């Protein structure tokens, strides 16, 4: 059951403070390619979304290049996110405690996490971010292909293109909103950023925010089931 949350390469390094591995170097590179793509897409997309943001096209060398590069970055994002999806989907499956966590979201916002259930590698908020990103990216790539005039204009009717561009713009607003939640949470909950930069968090961070995950890791390493882990001290 809980094994879904714990990856074989996640190790605990005892010390002061305790250091816990959270993301492999592969996952981090994958994440940052996705992050860069999403930001580039947001900037270039917003340039074409609202006239007052058209100046953002200057970042890409003008309107023509913005129009050209946006869909290609979208393709990069799709495949990059697919990588993240395959890495993380299992740990993001909905669990019973997630409902309780969500019901007590006020306590979470009030920085009083003692009142919410212990959570595994991801809490309900993170899972919602994960699944909304997944769904929105599928919507965005499919509507985006319909709107990609340069290569795909002949395959759809104008009315289909109109639906696609409307859906695309609404989904884009939604995903930028989800990104704001994701970004804000990462800075609000201090100690989170190192998880995606150096790949590790402190034991205290894991205890505070993902206690169940920490317990599982400890249980695993004390049983010595980690593939590269040291034998338990006998």
């Amino acid at each position: 059951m809980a094994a879904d949350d714990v990856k074989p390469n996640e190790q605990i390094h005892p010390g002061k403070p305790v250091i816990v591995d959270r993301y492999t170097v592969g996952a981090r590179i994958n994440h940052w390619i996705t992050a860069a793509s999403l930001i580039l897409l947001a900037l270039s997309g917003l340039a074409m979304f609202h006239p007052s943001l058209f100046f953002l096209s200057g970042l890409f060398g003008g309107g023509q290049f913005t129009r050209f590069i946006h869909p290609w970055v979208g393709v990069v994002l799709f495949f990059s996110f697919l990588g993240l999806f395959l890495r993380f989907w299992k740990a993001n499956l909905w669990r019973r405690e997630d409902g309780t966590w969500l019901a007590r979201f006020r306590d979470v916002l009030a920085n009083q996490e003692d009142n919410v259930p212990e959570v595994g590698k991801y809490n309900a908020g993170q899972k919602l971010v994960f699944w909304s990103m997944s769904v929105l990216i599928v919507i965005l790539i499919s509507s985006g292909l319909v709107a990609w005039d340069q290569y795909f204009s002949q395959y759809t009717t104008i009315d289909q293109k109109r639906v696609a561009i409307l859906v695309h713009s609404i989904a884009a607003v939604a995903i930028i909103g989800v990104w704001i939640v994701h970004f804000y949470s990462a800075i609000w909950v201090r100690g989170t950023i190192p998880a995606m930069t150096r790949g590790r968090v402190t034991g205290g961070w894991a205890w505070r925010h993902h206690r169940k995950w920490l317990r599982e890791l400890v249980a695993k390493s004390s049983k010595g089931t980690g593939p590269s882990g040291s034998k338990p001290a006998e």
Partner: protein
Amino acid sequence: MFPPLPNPSTTETTPRFSEKDLIRRSASTVPAPEQHLTEVAKLIDVSKCIGCKACQTACIEWNDTHPEVGVFAGAFENPPDLTPDMFTLMRYSEWDNPETNELEWLIRKDGCMHCADPGCLKACPAPGAIVQYSNGIVDFVHENCIGCGYCIKGCPFNIPRISKVDHTAYKCTLCSDRVAVGQGPACAKACPTQAIVFGTKDEMKGWAAKRVEDLKSRGFANAGLYDPPGVGGTHVMYVLHHADQPELYSGLPKEPRISPLVEVWKGVTKYAGLTVLGVAAGVGLLHHLIMGPNRVTEADEEHAEELTEGDSHGRR
């Protein structure tokens, strides 16, 4: 006969309209022009058209486009559709009139209608790529065009085409360069039967009324002028012998208007979208100001240390 267009003068003429006569400019605002030019219009009398394609040829010549040599597609249309190099196209349809049991050959010169409420301009995200002059002409400014194809989605008549060469949108300009110096569109100049005439919009409506009257006297009871109000009227109008059924003429829309999808996309979505994002960012900022960061405490670290010290006494 409608008075033919004058020949060009040999002396230099100053343009009759310019940037200062813009009433709309895509993705930007323009100051209201000092004076409102007389609205112009092109009137295409379908009942007088003989389908010779002189207008197409004149259009290619004047605009110096180079359509590629096509292939026979089994129909009179040549090329089969509007292209970035073919701004106007004779469309032919054959119709069995159930009332008279006669086969009617309905020929319509397709091209930009120069709507008073231009969907292309309203959909365009690039500042100044599409402009509308107070005389009614809707023109594309290619150096500002980014080639996104939004104008195609905005247009109720399926007119703009994106060039694969320079990735900008093309359509009929109503020969704005000729009109600016007192000339009429090249197609109107070339038309041998005066099926295409050009003048002020009022003149054209007056002329159309006479033509409609004439057609009615010849048994076309439903003859009428096509100047659809759904797009605020157009600056290219048709005289149709079956004005009650414009679809007969190769799918001329009966009640054209900017698609509601486009209006939602360019209206509420645009404003609500940015508002939602602004509010989301604001709520985040406010939350941080009020609640402050969520910091890991010394006690948390100690708990973790206890937990990892090999045995399970960290559990409470």
